[in-house]
C-alpha cells in the first residue's frame, strides 16, 4: 500500500490523479487551501478505494508551515512513498507586464513555493533512499513566449530545479518526475477557446500515472507535446523573436 501526499489537491489534474491512486488502494494525504473542498475530496476518495485519507488545509504561500505540513503528512501516513506537487495559477501576462508585484507573486506561487516544498521533501526522500517526487511543471517552461513568459519563467525555474534534484537523488534511488502538460481543459484554462490540441485532465492524469509507474524522468502529457516542443525549441532565436507565439 503506497503512501501518497498530494499538494494542490483540488486542482483538476490532481483530482483525477487522486482517483487513480485511490482505486489502487493508496493511503493519501491531501493538501489544499479550501477545507470544504478537501472534505468533498476525502469522502470521494475513500469511497473510490483509498485505504485512508487525511487532509491538511494550507495556502502554499505560508512558507513557514511547509516543513510542518510535510512532517504531519509523514506522521499521518506513517511514511511517504510518493509526493505530487500540483498547485499553481495561470498569471495574467498583460497585467504582470504592468506590475512587478504581481509578477513576483505569480513567480512565488508557481516556482518558489514549489522549490521550498521540494527542499523539505528532498531531504526526507534522500534519507529514506526510495520513493518518487512528481511535480507538475509545464511545456511553457521549455521556451519563453510573449504570451505567457512570466508563467513560463516560473515553470522553467521549476524544471531546471528538478533536473538538478533528479541528478542529486538518483544515487539515493529516488525518482523525480517532471511532468510537462500541454493544453489541458481545466478551471485554470477556462477562458481559452479549446481546439484539437486540448486534452482532458482525466487523460492527462492517466498519462502521468503511467509515467510514475514507469519511473520516467520527464513526461510530456499527452505524449505529442514532446515533439511539438522539440520543434518550438529548435526554431532559431532570429526567427522566433518575430513570431507571435
Amino acid at each position: 500500500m503506497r503512501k501518497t501526499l498530494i499538494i494542490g489537491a483540488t486542482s483538476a489534474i490532481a483530482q483525477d490523479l487522486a482517483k487513480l491512486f485511490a482505486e489502487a488502494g493508496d493511503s493519501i494525504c491531501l493538501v489544499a487551501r479550501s477545507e470544504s473542498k478537501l472534505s468533498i475530496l476525502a469522502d470521494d476518495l475513500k469511497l473510490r478505494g483509498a485505504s485512508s485519507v487525511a487532509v491538511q488545509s494550507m495556502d502554499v504561500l505560508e512558507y513557514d508551515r511547509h516543513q510542518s505540513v510535510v512532517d504531519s503528512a509523514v506522521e499521518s501516513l506513517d511514511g511517504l512513498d510518493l509526493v505530487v506537487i500540483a498547485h499553481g495559477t495561470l498569471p495574467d501576462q498583460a497585467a504582470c507586464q504592468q506590475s512587478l508585484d504581481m509578477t513576483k507573486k505569480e513567480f512565488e506561487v508557481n516556482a518558489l513555493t514549489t522549490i521550498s516544498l521540494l527542499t523539505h521533501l528532498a531531504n526526507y526522500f534522500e534519507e529514506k533512499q526510495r520513493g518518487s517526487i512528481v511535480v507538475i511543471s509545464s511545456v511553457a517552461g521549455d521556451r519563453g513566449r510573449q504570451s505567457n513568459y512570466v508563467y513560463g519563467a516560473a515553470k522553467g525555474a521549476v524544471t531546471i530545479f528538478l533536473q538538478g534534484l533528479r541528478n542529486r537523488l538518483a544515487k539515493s534511488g529516488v525518482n523525480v518526475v517532471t511532468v510537462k502538460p500541454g493544453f489541458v481543459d481545466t478551471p485554470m484554462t477556462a477562458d481559452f477557446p479549446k481546439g484539437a490540441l486540448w486534452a482532458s485532465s482525466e487523460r492527462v492524469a492517466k498519462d502521468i500515472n503511467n509515467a510514475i509507474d514507469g519511473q520516467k524522468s520527464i513526461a510530456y502529457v499527452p505524449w505529442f507535446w514532446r515533439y511539438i516542443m522539440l520543434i518550438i525549441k529548435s526554431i532559431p532565436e532570429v526567427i522566433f523573436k518575430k513570431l507571435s507565439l
Partner: protein
Amino acid sequence: MTNRSYQSWAGYPVVDQEARKLNWQSDSLPLQDSDGKSFLPYGNGRSYGDVCLNDGGIVIDCRGLDHFIEFDAEHGVLRCEAGVTLQEILHFAVPKGWFLSVTPGTQFVTVGGAIANDVHGKNHHKAGTFGRHVSRFELLRSDGSRRICSADENTEWYQATIGGLGLTGVITWAEIRLRPVKSALIDQEVIRYSNLAEFFEIARASDQDYEHTVAWIDCLAQGDQLGRGLFIRGNYSDTVQNSAVRQPKFNLTVPVEPPFTLINKMTLKLFNTVYYNKQRKEQIKGQVHYKPFFYPLDAIYQWNRIYGSKGFFQYQCALPVEHMEDAMREILERISRAGLGSFLTVLKLFGDKPSPGLLSFPMPGATLALDFPNYGQKTLDLLDQLDEVTRSVGGRVNPSKDARMSSEDFQLHFANWRKMEDYIDPRISSSFWRRVTAES
C-alpha cells in the same frame, strides 16, 4: 464564448451559447457578469434535441460535480454529485454487487441529466422511471437558496424537478437507490419474430418473468412482415455459467464527422436486413456482459457523427394501451412507406408504475424510438405525420429526444406544463422550453 463542444447529441439545432463550469457543490452558481442572461444546467450533452440547449444564453457545465459522497453498502443507497455519470456509478457499484435500478440505453449520462429527463430503460414495466429510485437531492437556485427535496420534504419541488428538464434549478447532489446483483452478467434470450402482432404477444408473455425486455425492429419491413425484429429479454444472472464472458473493450469511435449522412436508403436496407437475418434460429439463449446488453451503441463512441454535419432527429413516442396496436401499426407503415428510418429502432411496452415527475414522459402502453437523418423538410414532414397518429390516440412525444414538436402538441401531451411554470427558476430557460411554450 461560444463553444462547439456544447451542443446536443443529435447535432440539431446548432446554437450559439456561452458555457461556464460549476465544479464544486459548495460553490455558488457562476453567474457573475452575465448581464441577466438566462442559464441552463448542462450534464454530458446526451439529450438528442434542444432540452440541453440555451441559444443566446449560458449553459452551466456540471460535469465537474463528479464526487461520490456516501455509500450505504448494506442497503445499496448511493449519494453522489449530479455530474457523476452512470458509467462511473457502475464502475463503482457493480464489483460491490449493486446495479442501477433503472438505466437508459447509454451509460454516458450524468445523474443530474437522468433525473432532469426522468429517463427509463428496458425494465420500465418492472421498475418505472429513474426518478422513482431517487430518494432525495439538493436543488440550488439562482437566488442562492438550497433545498433538500424528497417525497416528504419540499415535495412539489421534488416532483417538478424529476423530469423537469433542468428548469427548476441546479441539482448539486442526489441520493439514489441501487438494486442488488450477483454478477455483471445478464441471462439473455433473443427471439426472432415475424410481425407486429407477434411482438405484442411475446412482449405480454415476457413482461412477467423478465426484468428487461425490448425489441429491435426492422423499420423497413412492410406488409405481413411489418414490425418484424428481434425480441431481447433478460434477467440479472444469479450464477456465472460461462466465465469466458468478459467485459468488452470500448475502442471503436467515429473519428470525424462526414459532410453528409452515411445513413441512406441503401445502407439502411442492407443493415436492417442483415441484422434481422443474423440470427437464423428462432431463439438463442446465453449469458452476456451488461455493457453490450444495455449499451450496444456506447461501443461506438460518437456514433452520432455517422449522420453527418446536418445531424439527425430522434423520434420517440408513447402510445396508450387502448390504442397502441393500431397506432403502432399506422406509425410503422408511415415510416416504412417513406423509406426513412434508422439502424436502431426500438419498441417496448411501458408498464404502469407511476413516476413522481410532473412532466414525466412514459405512460402505460407502447413506445417506439428511432432516428432519422436530417434531410430537411422531407424528414420534418414525416415526423409531422407521425405526430398526427400520436396525437390522435392521446400519446406523447419524448421531450428529451425532441427538437421539433409543435407547442400545441407539447401542451396537449403534457397537461401539467402550466403547473410546472410555478417552479421554474426565473433565471433558467432552455431552447426547448421557449419553443414549446411559445404562443401559437
